[in-house]
Structures are given as C-alpha cells and as structure tokens.
C-alpha cells in the first residue's frame, strides 16, 4: 500500500480511476454511432430483410395460387367428364328404350297388318263363295230345266240316245265350265 501511495505521489495513474475526457469522448462517439445506426443502418437492413421475405412469400403465394387454379381446373374437368358420362348413359338408355318402343310398335303394326290381311282374305273368300253359291244356284236351275227339256224333247225311249244326251250335257257343262274358267 505504501508503494501505491508513493506511486500516486509520483503522478502514477490508478487504472480504475477514469479520465473524465475519455468518458466524454466515448459518450459522444457512441451517441453519434447510435444515431447513425437508428436512422440509417437498422432501417436499411430491416428493409432488405422485409423485401426478401416478401419476395419469397410472394413467390410462395403465387405458387399456391397456381396450385389452387390447377386443382380447380382438374375439378372442373372431372365434373365435366362425369356430366358427359351421365349424358352418354342417358342418351344410350333413351336410345335403347326408343329402339324397344319402335320394335314393339313395328311388331304390333305387323301383327295388326297380318290380322287385317287374314280378315280381308276371309271376307273375300266368303264373298266369292257366296257369289259362287249364288251363280251356281241360278245355273243349276237353268241346267236342270235345260236338261229336263232335252230329256223330254228327245223322247226318252232310246237308252243309247239318252246316254248320249247325258254325255253331251256333261260335255257341254264341262266345256261351259272351262269357258267360264277361262
């Protein structure tokens, strides 16, 4: 301790006693630095950080948007595909039922047509038969009368003759029939 006192007396510096001017110098220098840092340095770096973050986040947002768009388009296509499929099925079903309907209609028509033709044929046959019967009936009378007249006119004595008369009658009848048929 004695030495220290001697040293102090000799103008020796005690290292933990500050020089007031050194404090002032550091204080002023630090204040200037602090001012520059607050006003310029920190805002400049924060701006760079913010811009970079924004650029990256903007890119991400854009990518997300594109993704969403693509998803929406895919969804739309799927929907359209489903719709088209439903439509196709519907059309096919319709066509099938329509075909069946047409077939049924045709079948019905054909059946009715054949029935109509058959009916018509029946009617015609009946009419022809009736006509034949009528004409036969009229002719049989005449024939009988004629036949009787001839038989009577020729005198029925000669057997051979009467047989000839009958034969001739029948031949006439046949030839008449053949003529009528012609």
């Amino acid at each position, binding site marked *: 301790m004695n*030495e220290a006192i*001697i040293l102090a007396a000799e103008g020796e*510096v005690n*290292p933990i006693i500050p020089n007031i001017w*050194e404090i002032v110098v550091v204080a002023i220098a*630090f204040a200037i*630095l602090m001012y520059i840092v607050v006003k310029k*340095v920190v805002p400049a770096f924060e701006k*760079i950080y913010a811009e970079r973050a924004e650029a990256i986040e903007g890119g991400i947002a854009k990518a997300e948007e594109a993704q969403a768009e693509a998803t929406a388009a895919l969804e739309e296509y799927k929907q359209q595909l489903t719709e088209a499929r439903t439509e196709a099925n519907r059309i096919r079903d319709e066509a099938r039922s329509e075909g069946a309907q047409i077939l049924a209609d045709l079948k019905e028509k054909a059946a009715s047509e054949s029935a109509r033709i058959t009916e018509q044929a029946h009617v015609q046959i009946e009419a022809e038969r009736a006509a034949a019967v009528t004409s036969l009936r009229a002719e049989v009378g005449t024939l009988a009368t004629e036949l009787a007249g001839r038989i009577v006119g020729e005198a029925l004595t000669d057997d051979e003759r009467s047989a000839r008369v009958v034969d001739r009658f029948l031949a006439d009848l046949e030839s008449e029939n053949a003529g009528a048929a012609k």
Partner: protein
Amino acid sequence: MIALALPATTQDEGGFVAPTIAETHLPPLFSIGSFDFSKHTLLVLLSVVIIAAFFMIAAKKGAMVPSKMQFLGESAYGFVRNSIGKDIIGGRDFMKYVPLLFSIFFFVLINNIYGAIPLLQLPTFSHVGGAYFLAIMVWFIWIGVGFKKHGIKYLKLATVPSGVPWYLLPLIIPIEIISNFLVRPITHSLRLFATMLAGHLIVMVAGAGIEFLVTQENILLQGTSLLVLAGAIAMYFLEALIMVLQAYIFVLLTAIYIEGALHADAH
C-alpha cells in the same frame, strides 16, 4: 497494487524495466485546455466512422441477392439481431433494442480489435472511462426498462425472489440489491476494461522484454528473445480471441439485463 509498484522498486538496479500502466496513456497529439486529443480519442472517433461506413455501404444497394460485402454486413447485423436480440430478449419487442445491441457490439468489437492491429495496437477499453460509460448507460437503460414495464412494483420484483421463506428475506433482499443494482455495472465495465488492459500490458511487456533481451551482450541471452517472441505471438492470438469474446460477452450481458428487467415477473 504490489505488482504495479514493482517497476518502481527495480528501477534503480539497472535491470529490466517493465512498462507501467502510465505508459498505456500516450502523450496527447494536441490539447484544448484540459482536454487531451490523444491517439485514444482518434481511435474512438475512427471506430464510429469505420462501423457507420461499412454498414451503410453494405446496405446501400439493398439487393435481393446480396454482394459479398452486403452478405457480410447482413450476416453481422443478423447475428446481433437474431442470435442476441431475438434469442435472448425475444418476444415482439426485441426489435426496440436491436439498434442499441448492434451499436454496443460493434463499438466494443472494433475498439477491442484495435489492440490486435499493428501500429494502432491500442484497445480503447484498456482505458477505463469508456467501459464505465457503456456500463452505466446500460445500467440506466435496463433499470428504466424495468420501471417502465412494471412500475414501482419492479423494485419488489427485482429484489424479492419468489418462493423464499419469509425469515430469509432480511438476508436475501440486501444481497439481491447489492448483486443486481450495485455490482452489475461494476463487473460489467471492469470485466471489459481489465481484459483489454491485461492484453495490452502483455503486448507491452513482451515488446519491452524482447527489446531488453536483444540488446544484451550475451548471444545466448539474445537468443532467448526468440522464446519471448514465440510466446508473444501465441498471446497475440489468445488476445485476439479475447477481444472478440469480450465484445460478445458485453453485449450478451446487456441483452440479459434488459431481458431480466422486461420479464422480472417471470424470474
């Protein structure tokens, strides 16, 4: 004090004269009244110019893809902002303290690094005044932050730890007051100052030792100066590490003190 006094006792014997602390204070370049404009003053002002110029040029372009210099500036800024501000103070309000932490870190760092640069060779904080100023400024700031955040209740939060039995409080409270409010600024400033002064003294002692040994007449004694030189180089790298480390520690403690004041209710 004994160690500091040693040179005085050996001075008269014509042997090795170790440099004294007084020699860390160089004669002023010029004086205005009692104000001495010294190398120390010049270096302090120069540090402001270096830091401001570097970071303003680095950030000037503000390019999305940074140049090498901008990248360096961004990394340095990001280190203080994220590794110290965000990680320690955290929350939403750490940005408020980033300019302070940034200024302190680079101010201390550059002023320390001076000690490792040939010719400059003077860590500014080997003079205690600057260290006192920064520590006291930080002391005012964190106490101010504490009172602003918690009001008068901050006194209780800072001195009465929760979960302590009542009968220990008369013992704990004075300890807390002394350790938190009185010892902190002293240790905060002296830690920086002492490491810088010690590093500076080692350089001076090594330099003086080499000079002394080289001027000896005995060739063997001259040869031992090489050993001193090797030791001095090793010490130089250790000192360079300590210079960076002390700047980091100083700003780390600043952030821790502020965080402690902000979240005094959680501690």
